[in-house]
């Protein structure tokens, strides 16, 4: 959807809000991954439990007609593992992934925090949708002027 026809330029606000929707969608997907794997104690190929993932956003730079750069929207640059928090160890000798002392490393996913993040992500998604709705409303109002 990167054809720079004049129609897309006309619908600039709509396109920018669409990039915001894409980004928030990626954030919600990542939160879903974190919540689903909140109890995954061993990742394939490693001895570690699941490590929480975080989405990183960056602006999309667009080149204007006069050669200047302008911020045009948002994109997901990377979904990186979160190394800022430690794995929590719980004592459960019956667990298949328990070490010799009977301790199991649990993922550094805090479900409460993920839920709070989910709410902000959904609200941000709704905000972008609201931008689109109002863009359409503006265009329709302007059209009524010509009728």
């Amino acid at each position, binding site marked *: 959807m990167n054809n720079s026809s004049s129609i897309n330029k006309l619908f600039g606000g709509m396109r920018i809000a669409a990039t915001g929707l894409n980004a928030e969608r990626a954030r919600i997907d990542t939160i879903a991954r974190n919540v689903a794997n909140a109890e995954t104690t061993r990742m394939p190929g490693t001895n570690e439990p699941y490590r929480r993932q975080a989405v990183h956003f960056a602006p999309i730079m667009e080149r204007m007609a006069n050669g200047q750069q302008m911020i045009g929207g948002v994109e997901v640059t990377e979904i990186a593992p979160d190394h800022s928090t430690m794995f929590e160890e719980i004592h459960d000798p019956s667990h298949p992934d328990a070490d010799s002392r009977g301790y199991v490393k649990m993922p550094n996913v805090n479900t409460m925090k993920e839920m709070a993040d989910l709410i902000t992500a959904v609200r941000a998604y709704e905000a972008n949708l609201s931008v689109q709705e109002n863009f*359409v409303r503006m265009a329709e109002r302007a059209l009524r002027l010509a009728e």
Partner: protein
Amino acid sequence: MVNGIGSGGGGGLARAAIEAALKRQSQGLQNMQNQAASLSGSETAGAEGGTSFKNLVEQGLQNVNSSVQDVEKLPVEVMKGEVDFHEVAARLKQSELSFNFALEVRNKFVDAYREIMRMNV
């Protein structure tokens, strides 16, 4: 990513609705293009400039046409899971709006033409 779409009767209904809307839009666009062509065919006096009225109308129609044709590929892309829900909605609305604007321009255009034809000489 959008596995839910297209499975079951609801998806089929939505698809049929989208296709019907698209068909209606592209038919309307075809009519408009034909009318613009017949109207601009009789208009030769203003055509010597670089950007004549005829060129502007044609260019505008082509832009709207590409926007509508872009949406015609949408059902396939949705089935392939290449586009998201919000993308579908945004593109549908975008093509609908640009089509309505073009339609309004065309209406004014035809009105002006009729007004001139009705003039007593």
